């Protein structure tokens, strides 16, 4: 079953916050179960907020918060700079790995064609095996780099 809020909920909520009750709204709230719920929920939450306000310690200092934000911003900026500076190296690294893999594929295929007695497998198998080995080695190199 879908239940609905009283159409005057916002008026009652506002009145409960302000503590100002027009007589007509008071009469409505007295007869409306939803509005009575709104009133006791409001009172409970106001009580909680009041106790929190009484117990609240001093706020963190605005100046230290401001300085902390500047420090965080500077650190993030430096990290960003380092990342940007390292980007060409990463691209060069990837290009070098690509070139090595291509060379290995070619060499594997050539070796199995030129020296079938030494390399009995089909050229494609040799190319794939060479590329696989090269990829594993390059992954290891990148991992070591990090």
């Amino acid at each position: 079953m879908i239940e609905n809020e009283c159409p005057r909920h916002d008026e009652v909520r506002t009145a409960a916050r302000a503590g100002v009750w027009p007589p007509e709204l008071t009469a409505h709230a007295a007869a409306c179960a939803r509005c009575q719920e709104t009133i006791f929920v409001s009172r409970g939450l106001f009580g909680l907020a009041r106790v929190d306000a009484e117990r609240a310690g001093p706020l963190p200092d605005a100046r230290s918060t401001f300085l902390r934000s500047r420090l965080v911003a500077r650190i993030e900026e430096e990290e960003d700079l380092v990342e940007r500076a390292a980007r060409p190296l990463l691209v060069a690294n990837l290009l070098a790995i690509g070139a090595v893999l291509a060379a290995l594929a070619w060499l594997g295929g050539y070796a199995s064609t030129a020296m079938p007695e030494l390399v009995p497998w089909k050229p494609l198998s040799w190319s794939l095996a060479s590329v696989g080995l090269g990829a594993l080695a390059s992954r290891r190199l990148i991992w070591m780099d990090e």
Partner: protein
Amino acid sequence: MTEAEFEAVYERTARPLRAYLLRLGGNTTLADDVLQDTYCRFLSMEPAKRQAAPERPLLYRIATNLMHDQFRRLRRERRAPLEWPPPHVEGVGPDLPHDMARVFAELKPQQRSLLWLAYVEGWSHVEIAAGLGLRSRSIRVLLFRAKSALAQRMRSRGLAPEVDR
């Protein structure tokens, strides 16, 4: 934003925002950490973006998202469902006879946010929607459900009278 401008914003907004975070997170240390992170994020935003939105809902939205990140991080670290309410909810004690803090802490985080902003802060539905990143048309229904959940818990603990429906 200059330091003086920031201090003015902080003066206007920090106290109610910390009260909200305290009730959302359940303890002062967490609330203060998230409060400071919130203002750091706020200051690191591009000025155009910061000025495009009203500052209060924007701050509450950042704070709510950061608090939810904290909940997720705690859940990940414990590798188990987050214990909620936490064993020691601040505000529970003999000087708060209705034990309202614990009842409130049993609600879902979104319900706590909705109720606090609507009833304690007195925000409109549009402001709540902006502060929590929700559609304003859904606020009425969500708020009604949150209020009913809290009312039911209050009644079951004898903190509120039974009402005829």
